[in-house]
């Protein structure tokens, strides 16, 4: 059995860890609260902008634009979004393993990562990302979304890649908290199958011309999609961290309870030991022959 002192130290350590996990839980739940009022609207925006795109795509099949054409060559680029930090349960591992699977399925593809864990993960699998965006996943702003969207659009426009797919953790609907992928470029109608209430608009007009409309619209659309994806990943990360840290705090509490019982047991058995030692000693003293002492004493 452990000594009471050792157990006491153990309890102190667990309590300290519990404090940290509790603080992290609070931070994440706070961030969740902040992002929650965004998220409802963001979902609406995401659906609307995709519905508009579907309406345009389904009613203008005769428009020829680089963003709408499936290119012959198939050079793929994957954008994988994970967190900057760990301590969030399976969030990072799930999305990263999914990303790794997709990258391995497509030899010769490019890889762009967002988040420090993603970079470290792919390096440890001997895959060097072609590009990294830092400091964006923990603070998804419109400005950073613009930066990312511009970079991705340039990549596609310069024909450095023929298809851009984003891999992130979904926060909505049936795929909630699961890694999903969404195509950014090129825009193809089958990607919009989940949008059901789009209108048929055969007589749609473009002003001043379809070409100009698409040229100006695509960057905006990309920014909207990238921002939506970033917000979803951010919310998923903090949700995962909040849950993980909450269960860690509860575990620590259970552990402390168990350790306290152990400590009390150990303390009591120590006391019992001591008492029985004293009682034994007293017993011995009582029965001891003091006459021996006396005789010896006299000799000195």
């Amino acid at each position: 059995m452990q000594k009471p002192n050792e157990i006491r130290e153990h309890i102190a350590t667990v309590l300290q860890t519990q404090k940290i996990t509790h603080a992290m839980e609070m931070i994440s739940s706070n961030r969740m609260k902040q992002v929650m009022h965004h998220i409802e609207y963001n979902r609406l925006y995401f659906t609307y902008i995709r519905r508009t795109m579907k309406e345009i795509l389904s009613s203008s099949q005769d428009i020829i634009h680089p963003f709408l054409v499936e290119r012959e060559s198939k050079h793929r680029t994957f954008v994988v979004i994970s967190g900057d930090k760990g301590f969030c349960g399976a969030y990072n591992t799930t999305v990263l393993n999914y990303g790794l699977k997709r990258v391995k399925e497509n030899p010769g593809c490019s890889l762009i990562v967002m988040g420090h864990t993603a970079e470290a993960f792919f390096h440890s699998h001997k895959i060097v990302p072609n590009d990294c965006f830092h400091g964006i996943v923990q603070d998804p702003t419109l400005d950073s979304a613009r930066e990312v969207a511009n970079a991705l659009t340039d990549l596609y426009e310069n024909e450095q890649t023929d298809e851009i797919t984003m891999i992130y953790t979904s926060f909505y609907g049936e795929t909630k908290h699961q890694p999903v992928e969404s195509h950014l470029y090129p825009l193809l109608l089958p990607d919009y199958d989940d949008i059901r209430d789009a209108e048929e608009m055969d007589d749609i007009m473009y002003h001043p011309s379809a070409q100009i409309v698409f040229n100006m619209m695509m960057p905006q659309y990309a920014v909207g999609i990238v921002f939506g994806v970033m917000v979803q990943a951010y919310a998923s990360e903090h949700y995962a961290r909040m849950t993980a840290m909450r269960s860690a705090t509860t575990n620590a509490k259970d552990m402390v309870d168990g350790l306290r019982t152990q400590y009390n047991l150990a303390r009591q058995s120590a006391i019992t030991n001591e008492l029985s030692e004293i009682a034994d000693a007293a017993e011995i003293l009582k029965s001891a022959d003091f006459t021996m002492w006396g005789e010896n004493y006299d000799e000195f």
Partner: protein
Amino acid sequence: MKLFNLKIMTPEREFFDGDVEAVSAFAPDGNVTILAEHAPFIMPVSIGTIGIKKDSKWEKSINSEGFLEVHHKGVIIYVQSCERPEEIDTQRAEAAQRRAEERLRQKQSMSEYRQSKIALARAMARLQVGTKLDYL
């Protein structure tokens, strides 16, 4: 006057959702006003002002680049940002203008140059409305 549903959406917030009489926005080649029962229509929106006519009164707000869709049920305008005149922080816009001008002066690459130009246009449009210059 006949009303139609107008939604103005930015990635960050829903700026407007309601029934209006007319809406006007800046197209690359001039100002466009849309009334109820307009045919399906798509156009890019330039940085400038969006006018909303409600209860026979025009209300204007400043918008950045985006696009406008007219569908059978109404109009949706997607812009990067949209602000009412009273929401505009003139000092912030002035600072942004200075920053964009500075960046333009030391333009490094073409794409950065493009980005700076857009940022400058956005700042200047905000200032125009912010200083109550009526040009709608």
